[in-house]
């Protein structure tokens, strides 16, 4: 089991996971005392769930070097958008400096940003406020 977990360490450690592990450790330490263990663990669980529910957005920022046709092609490939939609986003990036390409769970947003960086686009993931 330890070796398997170590192999899995190739997946980026997540803040929510770290907190979850910390919560479990707290429970381990408190084991034996009867009344003080349950309540803090529940609070932690609720907060973690809230954090997981926060949507993230993938934002692409303007760059004067990348060609417009290239950016359109990348949007079509990465997000599977039809040409017209990809062009709309490309023009929004060009004229307004940024465009929100996608919104959803963090893991997926990270995946998209990684793909976009592979194509040398200036992309970030942001929490939706």
């Amino acid at each position: 089991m330890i070796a398997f977990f170590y192999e899995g360490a190739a997946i980026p450690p997540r803040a929510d996971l770290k907190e979850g592990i910390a919560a479990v450790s707290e429970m381990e330490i408190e084991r034996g005392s009867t009344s003080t263990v349950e309540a803090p663990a529940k609070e932690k669980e609720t907060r973690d769930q809230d954090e997981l529910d926060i949507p993230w957005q993938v934002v692409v920022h303007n760059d004067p070097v990348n060609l417009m046709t290239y950016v359109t092609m990348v949007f079509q490939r990465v997000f599977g958008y039809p040409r017209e939609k990809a062009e709309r986003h490309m023009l929004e990036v060009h004229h307004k400096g940024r465009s929100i390409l996608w919104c959803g769970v963090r893991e997926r947003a990270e995946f998209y940003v990684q793909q976009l960086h592979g194509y040398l686009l200036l992309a970030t993931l942001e929490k939706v406020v």
Partner: protein
Amino acid sequence: MEICRKGDALQVSDLDPFLAELLRQIPSSTNPEGEAEAEARLFSRPSAEKEICEEWESYVEPELRRLFRSATETVAEDLAQLNGKEKSLRNRTLSIPFEHADAWLNALNRARLVIASKYKFSDAELNDHDRSPIGSRRDLGLFQISFYGFLQEFILREMKCG
């Protein structure tokens, strides 16, 4: 110089020694070493959050470096066709297998980004299509960006056509 699609390859023909040299410089131009701004541009921050950036550096950046290195190697292998004496380049044809198109797009884009960072070209300079002749290394850099952009446009057009 002429560029066209022939079957499963893109062919760049009638190369003069100057353009052949610019093509040969693509792999070395992609290298951001010693240029902090260029390095920061190729490996841009994914978020304003420190924790995400730290994870990114550890887990995603190595993958990106591997991807970029592989693309550069593919382009360098194709460019080996241009090795030899300058005189023998006359009427030389560079044949780029179409399956290497993605690697070429990637390398050309990185070369353009690195050169633009190195010389800190402004938006106006990058969009000035009536430039004066090449008189300095900086002018040459701007010409390289333009030439590499032309090649990218051609590859993209052929990709669209299938």
